[in-house]
């Protein structure tokens, strides 16, 4: 019985840690092509492969740091290529490569020669101090599941600092409803811990089986519960950070959720992508776990029906709604083709599918509210068909499909992702404009995302990747699409961040010239030697 439901989220986490073997030979040809001009401050950012002797010397130093900060396992704390043998680089690949195969100098993989996995804040501090003295760039990284390459090394001369072994603390204080986590705790472990004690962690995203809670802070992740429980900024109670200077900054003295004592310094690190500091500890507000859960999927013929459903859900069920998601027929076809049909028993018509999830505390009353809502929209003629999950098994199957949309699209061959937020009325129009532009090139638009918080994943897919003159979808859509979205008051990156993907939009479209001046000023304060995330040149150019 238990095997009937395919656990798609597990497939998802497996794929985000997959390893692809590569040869080291063809990298130099690509380096020039993909390296854009950058400022003086970063001339060491991507050029100049370290000599084997330098790598050896650094590895020895890092091992010494690990030993002196009491690391229980030096070999786990310092990963480096064995320069004398032809051993496989696959262990390093997990940390140096982009799982999407998109970011990194040659577009296939990152380049860090050395990966550091400290298990204590003290070790992180010592590493950062050392790197300041030696002018070594650090790429802070969580579970390496990001979509924009913020944690993927760009140059040979960067070390990756992975938080994956910083996972000793995971404790929930029920008197304050606050959970304290070492930054390398895997998100699903935090979710499970909360669940065991009757709480819910406010962040839940598709990559939860691999991503780290600290990485969630640095990338300002969104996810399916944003709608109900709010953003990371709203739920963040405290942070411990090692700044680019190597200071341990503890911003978790106040354990209370309500706190207006002065400027909220920790918020600078939310979405900071490791440019100001490395998050080592996280304190988050957790919520009482609701007792009931209902999941319905509604078929919407067209976009205007999707809009109506969204409005009715908000108007009639309000705070009972925990997630409100949308998927179009195209993305579901991809899920069926690339992942498998399990759990897709509810797909019938064309158009869009809206997933509505409620969570409450009274089974009878909640069920009644949901049924009355469903009855209402059927009577109004907004919806003709759909399903209501009979039990948790169907709930899991439906969510499995929703969470595998991203992976299915990645397996389509070429995919162009635009993680944007837009007013409801603009989605269809922008989608049509995108379709018109890519149709001649064999591109197909697929849409899915968080209807409740107006965050849509607007993706173009086709079998081949970008290729040559007149056949380059990136060039066809960018920067037009970003300008179009900003013009409509939307966000060009609603939950994935900037990374190596959108740095060149910062000044022109996101914060403006003056804004960048201030951001550079903040960078100077926390990381005067520009050690952290040196590869992210575009952001601070």
């Amino acid at each position: 019985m238990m095997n009937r439901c395919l656990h798609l989220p597990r497939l998802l986490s497996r794929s985000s840690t997959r390893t692809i073997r590569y040869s080291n030979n063809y990298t130099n040809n690509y380096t020039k092509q993909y390296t854009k001009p950058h400022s003086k401050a970063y001339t060491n950012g991507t050029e100049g492969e370290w000599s084997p002797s330098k790598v050896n010397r650094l590895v020895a130093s890092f091992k010494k740091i690990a030993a002196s900060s009491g690391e229980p396992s030096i070999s786990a704390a310092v990963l480096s290529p064995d320069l004398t043998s032809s051993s496989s680089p696959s262990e390093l690949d997990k940390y140096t490569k982009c799982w999407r195969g998109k970011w990194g100098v040659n577009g296939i993989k990152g380049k860090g020669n050395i990966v550091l996995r400290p298990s204590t804040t003290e070790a992180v501090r010592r590493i950062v101090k050392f790197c300041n003295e030696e002018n070594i760039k650090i790429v802070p990284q969580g579970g390496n599941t990001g979509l924009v390459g913020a944690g993927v090394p760009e140059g040979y001369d960067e070390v990756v600092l992975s938080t994956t072994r910083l996972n000793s603390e995971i404790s929930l204080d029920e008197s304050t409803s606050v959970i304290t986590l070492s930054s390398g705790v895997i998100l699903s472990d935090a979710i499970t811990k909360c669940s065991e004690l009757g709480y819910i962690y406010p962040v839940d995203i598709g990559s939860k089986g691999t991503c780290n809670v600290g990485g969630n802070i640095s990338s300002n992740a969104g996810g399916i519960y944003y709608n109900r429980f709010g953003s990371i900024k709203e739920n963040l109670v405290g942070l411990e950070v090692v700044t680019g200077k190597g200071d341990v900054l503890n911003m978790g003295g106040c354990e209370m959720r309500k706190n207006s004592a002065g400027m909220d310094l920790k918020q600078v690190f939310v979405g900071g992508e490791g440019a100001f500091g490395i998050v080592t500890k996280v304190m988050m507000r957790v919520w009482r776990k609701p007792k009931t859960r209902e999941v319905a999927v509604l078929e919407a013929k067209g976009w205007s029906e999707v809009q109506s459903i969204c409005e009715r859900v908000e108007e009639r069920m309000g705070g009972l709604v925990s997630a409100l998601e949308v998927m179009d027929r195209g993305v579901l076809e991809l899920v069926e083709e690339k992942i498998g049909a399990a759990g897709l028993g509810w797909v019938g018509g064309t158009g869009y599918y809206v997933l509505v999830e409620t969570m409450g505390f009274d089974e009878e009353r909640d069920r009644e509210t949901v049924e009355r809502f469903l009855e209402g929209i059927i009577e109004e003629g907004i919806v003709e068909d759909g399903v209501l999950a009979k039990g948790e098994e169907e709930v899991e199957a439906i969510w499995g499909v929703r969470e595998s949309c991203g992976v299915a699209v990645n397996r389509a061959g070429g995919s162009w992702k635009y993680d944007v937020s837009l007013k409801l009325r603009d989605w269809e129009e922008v989608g049509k404009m995108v379709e018109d532009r890519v149709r001649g090139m064999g591109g197909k638009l697929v849409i899915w995302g968080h209807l409740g918080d107006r965050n849509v994943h607007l993706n173009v897919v086709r079998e081949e990747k970008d290729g040559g003159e007149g056949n380059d979808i990136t060039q066809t859509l960018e920067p037009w699409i970003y300008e179009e979205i900003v013009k409509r008051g939307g966000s060009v990156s609603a939950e994935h961040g900037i990374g190596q993907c959108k740095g060149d939009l910062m000044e022109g479209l996101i914060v403006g010239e003056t804004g960048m001046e201030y951001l550079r000023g903040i960078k100077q304060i926390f990381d005067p030697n520009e050690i952290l995330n040196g590869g992210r040149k575009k952001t601070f150019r």
Partner: protein
Amino acid sequence: MRVMVGVKRVVDYAVKVRVAADKKAVDLANVKMSMNPFCEIAVEEAVRLKEAKKATEVIAVSVGPKASAETLRTALAMGADRGIHIMTDIRTDQELGSLSVAKILAKVASEESPDAIILGKQSIDGDFGCTGSMLASLMDVPQCTFAAKIDFDASTVERETDTGTEIVKFPGLPAVFTADLRLNEPRYATLPNIMKAKKKKIDTKSIEDLGVELSEGNEVLEVFEPPPREAGILVDDVDGLVDKLKNEASVI
């Protein structure tokens, strides 16, 4: 042909159950309840028979508390025509034994005289798996348990065994069938059908109304959790693993 199916309300299969404070039962307070998965398969099979015009009516029967009406409503939303709710406050996961349930179902069957009775092979709470066989014995009709495929035209059933499946011929109807996992994959309840189900009829009766004398159930002495698994250890490298396998586990 008229088909009767049994549906039982049980703790949702995905819920991690907890032992109640008195250690005499599983804690049911604030726990998500759903239709027993094998009963879902039984309902699906009956509804498919109706869709294939082989069955004229599908009657869903549930024995349990007030909330079992919801479970019946789900069966109606899947396509059953009407429901019969035998209401009782006796806990159906452990106090009301298989024989008592079989007696109740036999009485309902004697009133409804269905041609085929399809039950789940077992419920995931008590896990006894006896009700179907007991019901067939009480009614003195053939029983086809652990069904993976039922062919009413040929009067054959492919049934699951420990080593694969076997095909058996049954002498004819009426007969009792119990559904195994591979019989079918139950459908989702669609919104139009959920709405239609609200208008379908559910008759509610008590065990006294039926005039059934219950058999003595099992006495629960203690309910306890299985011993927790010991935590694993992480080895540093391959040599460490080989060492442990060789010297501690003695498997290589």
